[in-house]
């Protein structure tokens, strides 16, 4: 009788160990899944790279691109022309909706409120989200970067150039 009871106890202990093993394995699986299931958010860096690319296109070695402003004469450009000029391609086979937006504003030093040239390219739906991001940073919304710099044209007329870039791609960079 006692022997039978001891065997029962051993069985219970075995089941208990098995249950603990499953719990621990499940916990480890959960940890790995949570950590590696979340993608790296590289949108800020992507927006910075895009800003640098656009800045390089509109001003090189301190001089404004002559295709945009030449001898104080402004050549209006459409978004598509601008993207072509800067060798940028916002179309992606992976995404149905455009994930990038770029806005470049050129200001005369004398009037910083009214841009003399305003170029917009990409998906302008992100622009509204940039306004929200300014007030309160939210991961699910696109990452926006705004940078300004100074440049001169061929006649050394002075301009301030403001570049705003927005990168969507929330699905790929944030766990929704």
């Amino acid at each position, binding site marked *: 009788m006692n022997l039978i009871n001891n065997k029962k106890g051993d069985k219970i202990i075995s089941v208990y160990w098995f249950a603990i093993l499953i719990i621990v394995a499940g916990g480890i699986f959960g*940890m790995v899944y949570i950590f590696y*299931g979340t993608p790296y958010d590289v949108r800020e*860096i992507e927006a910075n790279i895009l*800003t640098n690319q656009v800045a390089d296109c509109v001003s090189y070695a*301190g001089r404004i691109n002559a295709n945009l402003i030449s001898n104080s004469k402004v050549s209006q450009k459409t978004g598509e022309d601008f993207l072509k000029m800067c060798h940028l391609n916002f179309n992606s086979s992976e995404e149905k909706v455009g994930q990038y937006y770029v806005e470049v504003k050129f200001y005369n030093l004398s009037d910083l409120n009214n841009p003399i040239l305003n170029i917009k390219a990409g998906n302008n739906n992100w622009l509204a989200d940039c306004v929200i991001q300014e007030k309160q940073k939210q991961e699910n919304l696109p990452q926006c970067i705004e*940078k300004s710099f*100074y*440049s001169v044209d061929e006649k050394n007329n002075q301009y301030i150039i403001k570049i705003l870039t927005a990168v969507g791609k929330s699905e790929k960079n944030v766990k929704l």
Partner: protein
Amino acid sequence: MLNYRKIGKKTRSAQVGETVTWIIATLIIIGILIIFLVVSSFMSKIKAIHVGDLGIDMKESNLVKEKTFFAEQLNSQNKEIIENIIKGQNG
């Protein structure tokens, strides 16, 4: 003569003690697992890579700043005003 009732009582209390030990051990294991799960969940939220996190070369090569510097070499009139405007806009 052996007192079987006393021995039975002692055996039972030993079993209860052992069971309590197992239950506490299980709770500790589950507790540790929950702590690790919470920590991994917290760590997954800070997986965003910012420009400041990158190597020193990338951090210091501020292309936009360089552009202002080059333009100032060409025309340095109103230098202070321009720098103040850019500082204000770039934050």
